[in-house]
């Protein structure tokens, strides 16, 4: 898809004025974080598991070449094929080739962010093959020709009325006066429609939550069971996955699974966790006859060893989205591409370029909540700052913002002058503002046009600290006396 990331500011304005979206985001902002907290509280080992999950991926990334070779060997031994692809175009063509060889007319798909990244649906359609998304949320947004607005809840931005309207426009063979008021009715309609597709598909295309090097296995995590009908029923199973999805062993996969669902939906484990290895065995009664893995780089090897290396630990749980004040205000579409939230703001510039995605690393308060909930302990705020530094060096951004930053830097490097300026400024604003707020300020229209600025107390932190130090010292002395 053509990114709309350059229009982030306009996208954000539109999102804030979108009532159904705001209602959905309000619900998300409460539900997901609460359920995550409850799941974590039920598992005393949760923090320790996060440390280990991080360490597993760190180890894999340090030895990614070795692990990819080991993984490939196991896929081949189990009768599958690995197709290495440098970029999106290679991956799309590889998938098309496999589909053509299979004489495929219909391809069922289970949710895959990588397939969104390479925009394979549009490509297959252009080439006369019908791709059918089978995750309920993905199915809805496919009918609406929209990108996902959340990693694990792709249609979270829509109301049930919008879904009903989408189904009425798409399922023209059904009675026009049928009731689609209840979510259950919508689900049953989609289930029936997609059941036909599952049974008729020639190729099943899935993503992979992980690739296990020990056994050449791909892991699929869903709650609906759609990935299972996708990989089991058609004659050909194609897995599309990026190279950093590797984990070493079944034990390591289990450790990461223990933090994945808890971080994502607050479930202890998703309903279906599936481990697929190769094609069906000769004596099996079902399963695909062919098994292909499309192993995609698409910018990942460039991130290895860079300032964004640690981003490759991401397991796409969506926790950073659910806890981000920016995501919770504007939703996923504002980010303008397939990823969103803090992980998207770090990843998108890596994948589509810093210039195109320049607003995204700036759309953050750097509050740090994302890092505090990330199961893989990815330092997202640090990497957002890295993008900002790079942008400044590359002279990207508005001249006035750059001028302000430069002036501030000049001043900040001269502490005495800085304190003098701050004391004067804060005292002045404190005096004219009293205990209230500024509704508008000259040179600060960017801030005050959307929100008030709290008036400062009239005294800087440093000067207050100096006043307070004596009290602290005497406190410390007193404590010493008691213990001494």
């Amino acid at each position, binding site marked *: 898809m053509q990114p709309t990331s350059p229009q982030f500011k306009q996208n954000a304005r539109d999102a804030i004025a979108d009532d159904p979206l705001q209602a959905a985001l309000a*619900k998300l902002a409460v*539900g997901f974080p609460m359920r995550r907290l409850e799941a974590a509280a039920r*598992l*005393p*080992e949760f923090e320790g*598991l996060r440390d*280990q999950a991080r360490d597993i991926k760190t180890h894999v990334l*340090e*030895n990614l*070449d*070795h*692990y*990819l070779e*080991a993984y490939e060997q196991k896929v081949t031994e189990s009768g599958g094929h690995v197709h*290495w692809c*440098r970029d999106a175009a*290679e991956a799309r063509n590889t998938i098309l080739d496999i589909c053509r060889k299979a004489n495929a007319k219909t391809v069922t798909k289970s949710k895959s962010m990588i397939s969104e990244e390479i925009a394979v649906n549009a490509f297959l359609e252009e080439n006369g093959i019908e791709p059918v998304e*089978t995750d309920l949320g993905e199915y809805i947004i496919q009918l609406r020709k929209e990108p996902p607005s959340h990693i694990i809840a792709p*249609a*979270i931005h*829509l*109301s*049930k009325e919008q*879904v009903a309207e989408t189904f009425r426009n798409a399922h023209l063979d059904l009675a026009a006066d049928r009731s689609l008021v209840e*979510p*259950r009715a919508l*689900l049953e309609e989609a*289930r029936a429609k997609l059941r036909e597709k599952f049974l008729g598909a020639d190729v099943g295309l899935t993503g992979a939550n992980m690739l296990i*090097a*020990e056994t050449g296995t791909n892991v699929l995590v869903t*709650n*609906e*069971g759609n990935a299972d*009908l996708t990989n*089991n*029923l058609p004659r050909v199973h194609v897995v599309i996955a990026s190279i950093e999805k590797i984990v*070493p*062993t*079944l*034990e*390591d996969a*289990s*450790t990461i*699974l223990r933090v994945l669902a808890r971080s994502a939906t607050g479930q*202890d484990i998703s*309903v*279906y*966790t*599936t*481990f697929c*290895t190769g*094609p*069906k*065995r000769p*004596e*099996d*009664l*079902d*399963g695909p006859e062919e098994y292909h893995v499309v192993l995609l780089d698409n910018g990942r090897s460039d991130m*290895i060893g860079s300032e964004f290396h640690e981003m490759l630990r991401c397991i796409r749980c969506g926790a950073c989205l659910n806890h981000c004040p920016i995501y919770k205000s504007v939703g996923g579409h504002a980010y303008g591409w397939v990823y969103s939230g803090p992980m998207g703001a770090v990843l998108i510039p890596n994948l589509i370029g810093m210039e195109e995605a320049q607003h995204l690393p700036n759309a953050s308060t750097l509050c740090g909540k994302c890092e505090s909930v990330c199961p893989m302990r990815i330092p997202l705020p640090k990497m957002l700052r890295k993008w900002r530094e790079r942008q400044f060096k590359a002279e990207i951004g508005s001249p006035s913002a750059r001028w302000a930053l430069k002036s501030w830097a000049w001043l900040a490097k001269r502490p005495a002058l800085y304190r003098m300026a701050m004391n004067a400024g804060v005292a002045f604003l404190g005096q004219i503002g009293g205990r209230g707020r500024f509704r508008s300020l000259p040179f600060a229209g960017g801030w005050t046009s959307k929100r008030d600025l709290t008036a400062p107390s009239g005294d800087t932190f440093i000067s207050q600290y100096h006043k307070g130090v004596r009290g602290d010292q005497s406190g410390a002395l007193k404590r010493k006396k008691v213990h001494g």
Partner: protein
Amino acid sequence: MSARDDILGKLRSKLGHINAPKGDNPALKHIQEHQKNLIPKRGDLDKAQRIELFCKEATRVNATINLLTSFDEVPDQVSAYLREHQLPAKIKIAPHPVLKGLDWQQKTSLMVDEGRGAGDDGVSVSMAYGGVAETGTLVMSSGPETPTSLNFLPLDHIVVVEADDIAGNYEAVWERIRVASGPGKLPRTVNWITGPSRTADIEQTLLLGAHGPQRLHILIVDQPGA
């Protein structure tokens, strides 16, 4: 240069592995050792407690469970389940020796078919490889006697699991599978199933039976002295 050589070459150069001594492969060593990581204590229980925890966790995620003392009770239980939910007296069973060996005809008036799952199957009965108490998870392993499609196509899924096969944690089941399949190998499909199919994709409303079964019924068989 092939894409494979290109990608691997780039990684080797970035990771400083180009001049690494041959045979020095931390990945293969790690895989061979396949050490266990931190395992939650909550599954570290004796058999009776394990089964209790399994039931508690599976029930939390909307599965229903009955405890039996013999496989012979399975046909009656299945029959009762169909009556309770007012379902047609027709089932598809996995061609597993234990299920095939049951006296379905004597005990019930069910129409019993066997084989892989089909699009119009209403109720399936399959045999689990094991269970995991930690999260109330069933472990299903594909094979000629246990086709995977039976786990997903029907609206009602009944699973028989032997009490002795319910482990405390995932790792214990992997150990069993490793012994059965050989190192570095797995059956085509291993499914962990924790409760019936669900979705919250429409306005974050939880609904059961998205694409897989709407109901998951577990029969735990604990044979005395077994």
